[in-house]
């Protein structure tokens, strides 16, 4: 999911950076005092999640966790993800500084969209909440893959081919993210429901 330096043309990079900056501003505005610690913890989780490799078949995939971050933070997921991506770029050389904006849009955009769509369902009955959370995890990766395709559309052959390739490559992780998000939400629902959207405003 991390797009490397030097792949994208500057209009794409600039658009990504502008969108990411706007999202970060909105996120910081919406992040109130009581949730700063939570944002930090989720940012740290996102930062290390990409190091957790899940072996499947001949290769392995890594967690992304943008769904969980989005669901628990809403718009504040954008600054949390920007910080984590920046540190991943500097310390792990995943992605890059110039592509930070684009990568933020790829990961945080779907997280916020999934939050807006699915958050109202999380306060419903446990079973509905479970599957809503599953869909959050699933779609936040799926939409991320489609966004990668969009970003690469201007440099590589065609949008559909690239997007299909990225989505196919990430299919296992969509399922895994779905269940991780779902179990995370049903756990929090029992233990600490105040963290979940719906119970808090």
């Amino acid at each position, binding site marked *: 999911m*991390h*797009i*490397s*330096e*030097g*792949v*994208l043309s500057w209009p794409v990079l600039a658009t990504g950076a502008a969108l990411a900056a706007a999202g970060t501003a909105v996120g910081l505005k919406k*992040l*109130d*005092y009581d949730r*700063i*610690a939570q*944002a*930090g913890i989720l*940012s*740290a989780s996102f*930062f*290390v999640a*990409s*190091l957790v*490799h899940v072996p*499947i*078949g001949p*290769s*392995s*995939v*890594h967690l992304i966790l943008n769904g969980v971050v989005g669901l628990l933070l809403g718009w504040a997921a954008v600054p949390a993800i920007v*910080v*984590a991506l920046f*540190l*991943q770029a500097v*310390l*792990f*050389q*995943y*992605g890059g500084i110039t592509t930070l904006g684009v990568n933020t849009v790829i990961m945080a955009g779907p997280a916020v969209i999934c939050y807006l769509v699915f958050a109202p369902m999380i306060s419903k009955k446990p*079973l509905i909440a479970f599957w809503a959370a599953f869909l959050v995890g699933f779609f936040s990766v799926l939409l991320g893959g489609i966004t*990668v395709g969009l*970003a*690469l559309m201007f440099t*590589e052959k065609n949008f559909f081919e*690239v997007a299909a*390739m*990225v989505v*196919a*490559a*990430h*299919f*296992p992780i969509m*399922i*895994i993210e779905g*269940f991780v998000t779902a179990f995370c939400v049903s756990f929090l629902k029992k233990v600490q429901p105040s963290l979940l959207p719906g119970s808090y405003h």
Partner: protein
Amino acid sequence: MKKALIHLFLILMIFASFASFDAHAHRVTIFAWVDGDTIHTQSKFSGGKRVYNGEINVFDLDGNLLLKGNTDENGEFSFKVPKNTSLKIELIAGMGHQNEWIVPVEEIGTIKQDSSVASDQPEDSNSVLETKTKASITVGLTGEELEQVVEQAVEKKLKPVMQMLSDLSDPGPGISDILGGIGYIIGLVGIGAYFKNRKKADSENP
């Protein structure tokens, strides 16, 4: 209901494990070394998976494209030195993954001289070898033969070392990177809390 869930989960997991996916990683690396008049490159994703059919472009440092090719199933691509200059080898692995490796002119320069010797040899190497088999017991090896034999032996011995170097050139993130990153995040939380708290305190008792 619970049972149904568990079944669904298992089915999905099995399905997931069959789903084919290639080229999934954070980044790609390319590693190149000079061997005689040939440059070998090896490309892989972090985690060690080889780049199959990745696009390789070789530039000189002025950005002129000298040659291009594709990696084989082992992520390898070899080519003859096209020009006696520093080379920039660029790897494009698709899905936004790209990296490059620079071969400095010194590495190529020293080799070029050797390779001129080597390229002179093929014609007479047969005859040299023939005379060698006839007369080696009595005469021993000539300087040229010796050079050739040594070169071959060294190349053979060096191959695994180069492999190791190629592996080492891509160290995963270390524990200090991870802890450092988490430390930065904690620090940012502190800064954020400080500013928000000041705002809050200001609004409470102006």
